[in-house]
């Protein structure tokens, strides 16, 4: 099973990659980990005439925290996220998600940014970034712009990324004290896409919720940010009634379709249950536990 013929370009720098995209436009695709793009090429769902491989640009593989921001580069791979002590200690929703991405072999190669740019509604990282209120830096030869994760996705496998742009950096507000998160994923077997998954990120402010982020995976045409549930939590004490209310609002925000993984009612109920559990786990972690 072979992709349609393409020309292969090994970019040695971001400038070179951006120059190629500028010239080739829609005829070119960026190759990072390739764990989603190459299957698409083989299935002939995509047949770009040019592939611009960025794997040789080692400086794109980074994670760094400073000036109130966690920055993640385009070649930061799932396995590195899984092994990151920084993420494990302070960015729980990411640390939870990383080992649940596909299977260990895919994780050796696939990248977070590539997964986000691929924009599969069943993808996990987009949901995590929605909960974290991340920003994405989109760079082209003529400059760069920053968009909120919530404005990035525009439908199934669709984003606002222009053909001449690269997702060059993910920016996440740095974790402060009293931060907790969780990612809960239901899958039929290891390596399967989510039946349903829920990302929760909590910033506590004393005994109350300072801000809350909730993202939903595989229950709509794109990853969903449950904004009404987030609003209901803001400024509230995290008691059982508040958690139940937020979970019900998150379930309302889901737009699942029935398929071989489950019915609409089932998936919506999993969103409710996972939001409750996720909030409790995130709260526990924000208080320094589990």
């Amino acid at each position, binding site marked *: 099973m072979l992709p349609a013929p393409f020309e*292969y370009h090994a970019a040695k720098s971001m400038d070179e990659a951006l120059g190629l995209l500028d010239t080739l436009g829609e005829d070119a695709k960026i190759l990072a980990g390739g764990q989603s793009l*190459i*299957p698409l090429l083989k*299935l002939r769902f995509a047949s770009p005439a040019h592939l611009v491989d960025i794997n040789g640009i080692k400086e794109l593989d980074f994670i760094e925290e400073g000036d109130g921001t966690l920055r993640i580069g385009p070649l930061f791979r799932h396995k590195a996220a899984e092994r990151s002590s920084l993420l494990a200690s302070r960015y729980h929703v990411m640390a939870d998600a990383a080992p649940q991405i*596909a*299977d*260990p*072999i*895919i994780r050796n190669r696939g990248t977070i940014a590539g997964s986000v740019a691929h924009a599969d509604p069943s993808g996990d990282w987009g949901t995590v970034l929605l909960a974290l209120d991340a920003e994405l830096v989109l760079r082209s030869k003529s400059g760069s712009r920053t968009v909120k994760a919530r404005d990035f996705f525009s439908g199934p496998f669709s984003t606002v990324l222009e053909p001449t742009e690269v997702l060059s950096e993910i920016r996440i507000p740095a974790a402060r004290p009293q931060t907790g998160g969780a990612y809960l994923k239901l899958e039929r077997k290891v*390596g399967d896409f989510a039946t349903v998954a829920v990302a929760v990120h909590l910033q506590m402010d004393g005994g109350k919720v300072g801000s809350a982020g909730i993202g939903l995976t595989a229950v709509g045409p794109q990853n969903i940010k449950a904004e009404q549930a987030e609003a209901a939590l803001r400024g509230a004490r995290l008691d059982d009634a508040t958690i139940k209310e937020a979970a019900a609002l998150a379930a309302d925000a889901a737009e699942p379709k029935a398929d071989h993984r489950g019915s609409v009612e089932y998936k919506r109920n999993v969103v409710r249950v996972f939001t409750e559990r996720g909030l409790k786990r995130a709260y526990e972690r924000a208080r320094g536990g589990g």
Partner: protein
Amino acid sequence: MPIADRVAVRLRVNGEEVAVMVPPYKTLLEVLREDLGLTGTKHGCELGECSTCGVLVDGRPYLSCLAMPLDLEGREITTVEGMADGSEPDPLQVAFAELGAAQCGYCTPAMLLTARALLDHDPHPTRDAIKEALSGVLCRCTGYLKIFEAVELAASRGRRHG
């Protein structure tokens, strides 16, 4: 659609430098099998679901069906053909044979290589660590139990050269 020319690719496979002329859209899997004659690496789903095409790149399991050869120049690629040391099989190969951990054998190369990567990193893994490491490689015959036991047997015997 352009007709892509063949390009020269230099790879390091099982400790040997090889150079091939291939179309750039061939994945590592096809290059290994068709251009280098290393047919131990198997075609499976072609899409990253089954891991039957798994090889090691710098000691870590990669899916050869989703890897572009031009991207792997200068890296150390190991296929199942590179596991034995001359006529002496890898301890994992011996244990798989002794315990009947291969039935149809189709997933066996990827199972062996993935297990090798695990043991190189963690010489005495727990059963859970073995399950996790091999979780991407699908076997439709054995029910996995014999495979797990074979990895444990090989681990208990230690490295080939002590």
